[in-house]
């Protein structure tokens, strides 16, 4: 896959939480690299769509969550991370257990050790949703620039006059749709559904029977996440939101006893659907999610949800409830404290109790100390429309056509 999701959870050394937090907050304030006091310049990496650092499990043993949506493999990404933010690594993961400290961050030995360290603590998402599949950050930013240039060009009076004058001379071609196209579309739908079901089953079997063995063999430390007390909801600082066009959401909920297996099945289905059906800018008509992931952590005890979404918390939650309340209920009804649902597959209640649902999310939501977006002004729909322009305007063909005209 071109775009990937890295999720790394590492344990913070006892007593070093506050030093780490202080450093991350400085980075978070200066994420665009406008001041000189930050060593983290994601923009210079050209492969980061979104990234965040979040201190989790403050009520138990604190851990550091790093997650990114990036182009290329995890190994390539980690190599680039070392190259671009080398000076910051000691100040961030240096406060976590198991980090290869005391090494020259530019040495090949460190590179090998650090890569191994991150990969060891990386968790594969159960469900991974991509808003714009197969587009690199730098390509997308190029399309956005092109779009901006076109907008400015179309504002010029001379261009407007020339277009008005020339347009009537173009012929109008009649367009008919051959009958077999409809048949082909029907067959395609059936095929997609079959692939969704097949992928669901394969992934489910892998998660239930194979992955636990792999994890056991690797002998990873458990996170043993402690759900924050209800009063923690009041501590969530909503004023950190709405700075750029997107917000980040990090939510960890406790899975009800015995529910991790049915939840896994649902997540596998959503994952397959995200891949085969909702692969053009919308997750079941929700066109505001750039990237999202669901991961069952802690050996089936907790569910981690992360998303990078457009607009405000209120409109995001509203959108979810308006359009996919069944899907939301299907996933979170397996978590403790979620508003009560009735029914089995097509459920009633649950997130439709929108106030209770919002409170539930806020209670379990965790602040990001650092949130980076490569698209501070653009929504998913802006990106998709720039992408369409970019994909139809091939410069080679245009140059050839213009030069021989």
């Amino acid at each position, binding site marked *: 896959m071109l775009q990937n999701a890295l999720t790394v959870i590492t344990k913070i050394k006892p007593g070093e939480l506050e030093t780490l937090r202080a450093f991350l907050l400085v980075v978070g304030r200066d994420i665009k690299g406008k001041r000189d006091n930050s060593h983290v310049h994601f923009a210079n990496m050209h492969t980061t769509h979104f990234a965040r650092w979040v201190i989790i499990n403050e009520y138990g043993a604190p851990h550091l969550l790093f997650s990114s949506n990036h182009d290329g493999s995890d190994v390539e990404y980690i190599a680039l991370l070392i190259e671009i933010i080398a000076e910051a690594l000691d100040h961030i993961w240096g406060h976590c257990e198991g980090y290869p400290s005391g090494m020259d961050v530019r040495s090949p030995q460190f590179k090998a050790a650090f890569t191994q360290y991150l990969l060891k603590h990386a968790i594969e998402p159960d469900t991974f949703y991509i808003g714009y599949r197969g587009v690199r950050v730098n390509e997308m930013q190029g399309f956005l620039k092109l779009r901006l240039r076109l*907008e400015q060009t*179309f*504002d010029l009076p001379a*261009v*407007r006059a020339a*277009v*008005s004058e020339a*347009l009537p001379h173009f012929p109008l071609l009649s367009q008919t749709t051959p009958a077999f196209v409809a048949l082909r579309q029907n067959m395609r739908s059936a095929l997609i559904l079959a692939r969704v079901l097949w992928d669901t089953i394969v992934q489910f079997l892998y998660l239930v029977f194979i992955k636990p063995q792999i994890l056991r063999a690797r002998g990873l430390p458990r996170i043993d996440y402690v759900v924050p007390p209800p009063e923690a909801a009041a501590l969530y600082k909503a*004023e950190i939101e*709405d700075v750029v*066009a997107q917000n980040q959401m990090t939510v960890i909920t406790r899975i009800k006893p015995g529910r991790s297996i049915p939840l896994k099945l649902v997540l596998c289905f959503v994952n397959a659907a995200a891949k085969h059906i909702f692969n053009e*800018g*919308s997750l079941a*008509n929700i*066109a505001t999610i750039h990237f999202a992931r669901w991961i069952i952590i802690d050996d089936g005890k907790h569910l981690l949800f992360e998303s990078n979404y*457009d*607009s*405000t918390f*209120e*409109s995001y939650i*509203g*959108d979810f*409830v*308006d*359009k996919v309340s069944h899907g939301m209920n299907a996933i979170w009804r397996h978590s403790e404290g979620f508003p009560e649902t009735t029914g089995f597959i097509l459920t*009633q*209640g649950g997130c*439709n*109790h*929108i*106030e*209770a649902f*919002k409170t539930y999310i806020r209670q379990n939501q965790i602040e990001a100390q650092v949130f980076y977006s490569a698209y501070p*002004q*653009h*929504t998913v*729909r*802006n990106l998709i*429309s720039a992408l369409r322009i970019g994909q139809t305007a091939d410069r080679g063909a245009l140059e050839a056509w213009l030069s021989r005209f």
Partner: protein
Amino acid sequence: MTTPLQLDDIQGFVVRGYTFLYARYLFLQFDTQAHGQQWLAKIVDWTTPATTWTQKPKVCQNIAFTVDGLKALGLADSSLQTFSKEFVAGMHTRERVLGDTEGNRADLWEIGNPTRPDLQIHALLLLFGLTSDDLKQFSEQHAQIRAQIGGITLLHSIDGVRRLDKKEHFGYLDGAGQPQIEGMDARSAAHSADPTRPLKAGEFVLGYQNEYGILPSSPTVPSDARAQRLAAVEKQPALRDFGCNGTYLVLRKLYQDVAAFRKFLQDNAPDFHSESRKAADRHEVEWLAAKLVGRWRSGTPLALSPEQDSPLPGKHENNTFKFGDDTAGLTTPRGSHIRRANPRDTFGLPGAYGTESFKAVNRHRIIRRGMPYGPPLQSTQDDGADRGLVFICINANIAVQYEFVQKWMNDPNFNGLYQNQDVFAHNHHITDTFAVIEQPPLRQRIPYPQSFVKVRGGAYFFMPGIAALRYLSASE
């Protein structure tokens, strides 16, 4: 099965557009709980209920309270916490959500300014009169009562004046797109599949089912002796439903810079003339005015009359149209005022247009009950007078309805748009934003020179049912 509305307990202002020509909005503060309760006890009987009129009364009166007002009247903190979070926090804390930045900041407000505790609003008294004399008399009666009791401070008073042609200061017909309430409107359950049907009462009144198929969350008080006339709370015998038949009321004083808006129309309308339109300049201004809002200034929607203004169709058609095939906004621009405030069948992705879109949009509607204030602008230059709109809306959930729609207005990226803002947004300064008019052969992009609307104050209120008003006025 729909629960019938308890019209004798709901305040009339909630479900009925009074269409009075004269209104006075009084903002009051109580010195003590006793003063407030005495005052309320004295006037509560005059409160206009929602019961159907056999004859239009000469005057109407309705009452609402801020969270500070309810506290002043003796509601305990434990009860106040059962109100909506936004209401409890107050409008002045919602700057970020409402876009009240720079010149619109709450610390600059005339009304509801948080830095002026001496002007802390407790109650909003709404008075209406058929004639200006009726209103004057009724206001004097109220002034006498306040004088008798003492300890009730009149902080501000704004007069709303509805013009005979029902137009607001920018020249548009006001309130053309009001949602209908189920049980209040003749065309009802029979058309339940019609997406433009009347909305569930629970969107606008607490105690009834809403568009999510549940009861909106409602504030409660302890079930003591004086609360016995309030509705019971299911499974919680220790509580009474204070919110039943009440609702939330949002008030904003919005200044309108009429001269600047007219100049904006004049400066930008001729552009169209040179390109595709051949009509007289006067018409061009009207055409631009229509494109910015999505309705001609007469109220007729572009969707029904795209080329020129035509006599207003029936009130019903005028509000039940759809945007339909106009996905590109060639008739009604995608960023126009009415397509933001009520996207109808065009919310979300073009593939999901239609009933699904209506389902979502119908959960984010408000009833507008505002009125213009200040004199009309007669000259072309600004005369320095204060004029604008007392924006008032009714909703059962401030965050999901009023604040949601306000975000739709301000959001440069609304519904797939980019750098595009509502013409009446009060924060055009935040970034480069444009009015975009989609048209062949090329869309027109007009930069906004400034905002034509400024926020001069406001507050979130709760408008209780009449039984709840009596509860508040009764001493323990």
